[in-house]
């Protein structure tokens, strides 16, 4: 049985956003493909919509990566953990992220 080192998604190299280092808070909608950010706020809205976003892993502190935009400009594809999710821009707008220094 191989022994495993503890490496959590939260502590992998790509997530070490150092405070104060070129960080801006923007809406998830405004990231560009390849950019990452840590969720700082999810604006309230309809309960079921918000609950679904939370349960899919989109909560405060989670790290998201902007993957791509659909061919016609909407929706967008994001990565959260190992999952790829499609979100409409209007929904992504409600999510504020702290942009990670690239």
């Amino acid at each position, binding site marked *: *049985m*191989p022994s*495993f*080192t*503890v*490496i*959590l*998604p*939260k502590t*992998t190299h*790509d997530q070490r956003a150092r405070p104060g280092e070129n960080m801006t808070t923007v809406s998830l909608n405004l990231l560009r493909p390849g950019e990452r950010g840590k969720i700082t706020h*999810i604006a309230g809205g*309809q*309960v*079921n*919509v*918000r*609950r*679904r*976003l*939370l*349960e*899919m*892993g989109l*909560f*405060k*502190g989670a790290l998201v*990566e902007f993957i*791509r935009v*659909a*061919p*016609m*400009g*909407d*929706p967008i*594809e994001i*990565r*959260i*953990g*190992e*999952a*790829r*999710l*499609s*979100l*409409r821009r209007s*929904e992504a707008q409600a999510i504020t992220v702290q942009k990670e220094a690239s």
Partner: protein
Amino acid sequence: MRANGGRQSRSRTIALVGNPNSGKTALFNALTGLRQKVANYPGVTVERKEGQLRFDDGSEAVLLDLPGTYSLSAHSPDEQIVTDILIGRTSQVDPPDLIVCVVDATNIERNLYLVSQVIDRHLPVVIALNMVDVAESSGIEIDEKILSEQLGVPVVRTVARKGIGIPRLKATIQATTKATGRARRWPLPEPVLKEYEELAALLQDRHRLNSYVAYHEAIDLLTSESPLPDHCDRYAPELIEHVIRDHQKLDFLGYDRQSIFVISRYEWIKGVLAPAVRHTTPGRRALGDKIDRILTHKIWGFAVFLGLMAIMFQSIFSWAAIPMEWISSGFDWLGHQVILLLPPGDLRDLLVNGAIAGVAAVVTFLPQIVFLFLFIGVLEDTGYMARAAFIMDKIMGKVGLHGKSFIPLLSSFACAIPGIMATRAITSPKDRLATMLVAPLISCSARLPVYTLLIAAFVPQTRILGLLSLAGLTLFALYFTGILFALSLALLFKKTFLKGTDSAFIMELPRYKIPSPQTILLQIWDRAWVFLKQAGTIILAMSIVLWFLATYPKLDHASPAEQLTHSYAGRAGHLIEPLIKPLGFDWKIGIGMVTSVMQRELFVSTMGTIYNIQDANDNAGTVSLAHQLRSASDPQTGQPSFTMLTAICLMVYYMLAMQCLSTFAIMRRETNSWRWPLFQLGYMTTLAYGVTFLVYRVGLMLQIGV
């Protein structure tokens, strides 16, 4: 052996739960093989898939495949049924004796969210850690022994599509009889925990809930919004008041009630996974990303999408024609045998022209249904469907629908019934209703017999640019117009009485995978069986009734045409003739329209019966119906009964009219009301009548096809 094996008075019920795309269906198929059946849950129409699970010692258990869900707090009807069964909110279905949680190893963190809720329910649980092969090749290593220790429940590694780990999973299921998971290990801040436990105690006390159920319902109550309109019929007013006070208290303390319960579960999951999982390349999908770059590309993405659609239509119309020919000759042979066997008379006539001809007219279309579901199955199982929804969402959004509405509408090309059933995946009730209402406007396979018959009879066999046949183009135009009407009406509905959105658009884009032939074949089998059952029951019965209506009352020494006019069917056709005359239809078409109110394809068998009777003296027997329609003429005037314009008008009418009792029935069940199916029947009939009238008038004016 089998009788001795199952000694228990009642066999155990095992429920299969898991996230969508976790390989749950493949696991269900691997565990049950062909021993499965599909029914519906009482009261609702969520599909209930049940199978027999046979253990090595010969004993058996019932395996229930519950709909895929991300959590037990979900609100779509499909997800709701999982919660209702596990939590025991429904009295009609007993809680299962054991739950098999299918976990997608490639996305274990999010999958464990549901597992954590299931473990809280405190029933015996076994985890099938599925798709471990894909996980390993994407750099995710999971030690299932450590995971099992961390969760307190058995974990078995599986690759369901390859049958790996299935014997061990069965053995583990059999050996697991007790709830071993540690419920509610996730940490909550003190003030929240206090209210949570207080409320759970109150629910146990006042509402006599099982403690584990009480804890589940307490979360539901605490994370809902005041003043809890949906909960008022289930709980006493004092309890609701108590919950509202809790809301105020926690809100005042600055807690985000919804987030807190979700985040603490995820915190717990992180702790559970820490010693058990090693990621070497987090979030990478080397090959999948390359494929996605093409399939979601501005140009290539749509090119591939249109290409796939084109191949789909090609397969339905060209490739399916070969087996259709076999089936058709098979029935001809059967009819011929009956003619040889029986003396001439009513019985022989009933068998050959009523039963055999009627069923043959419909069963011939089985290959097309098989091809269509083969396509849909492959697109779904590879993961392409979600990409299609992704690139189509902007367009669907323009008519107020969801990218996910695309899949039900696409399925409606096969049949509106599975299409309407597939709308359950749409989380927004308004979007779902709009999709259901317009789904029958998409030209389904039942219209194909009508279209192909009329095209074969009246569209010239010319080719344009030597490539595209005029027949194919006509068919494409019909399908395209159907889509256009469906989308325009969806927009109209979403702009009027279904205004606004009420759910998240969020959708998972699963990993690509090699489709599993077993999963696809079983799905095709399910659909084909439903279709054949209809052909063997409703259509057989209707064919016989129709034959009777077209044969009796008998007229002595009459020509076939006079006999038909004299029959009950002829009289019914005459009766509605004034109504359909403005559309250019005569009483014979009227008979077809009346009988096909139940099922569109009956139009073809009705025409078959009607024209077979007219040509009863013709003993060739194999003269195609198309040819007969073309040569049919009015017995009085000698004018042709059908012109090209009549054919076009008929196709337009059938493109837009509901003409399907099964769709009506499924709408009644899915919406749980008479209002929506009646509305659907009403608007579609009005639309079909109006548009056909316009087409006929314009055609007459411009002298097209007359």
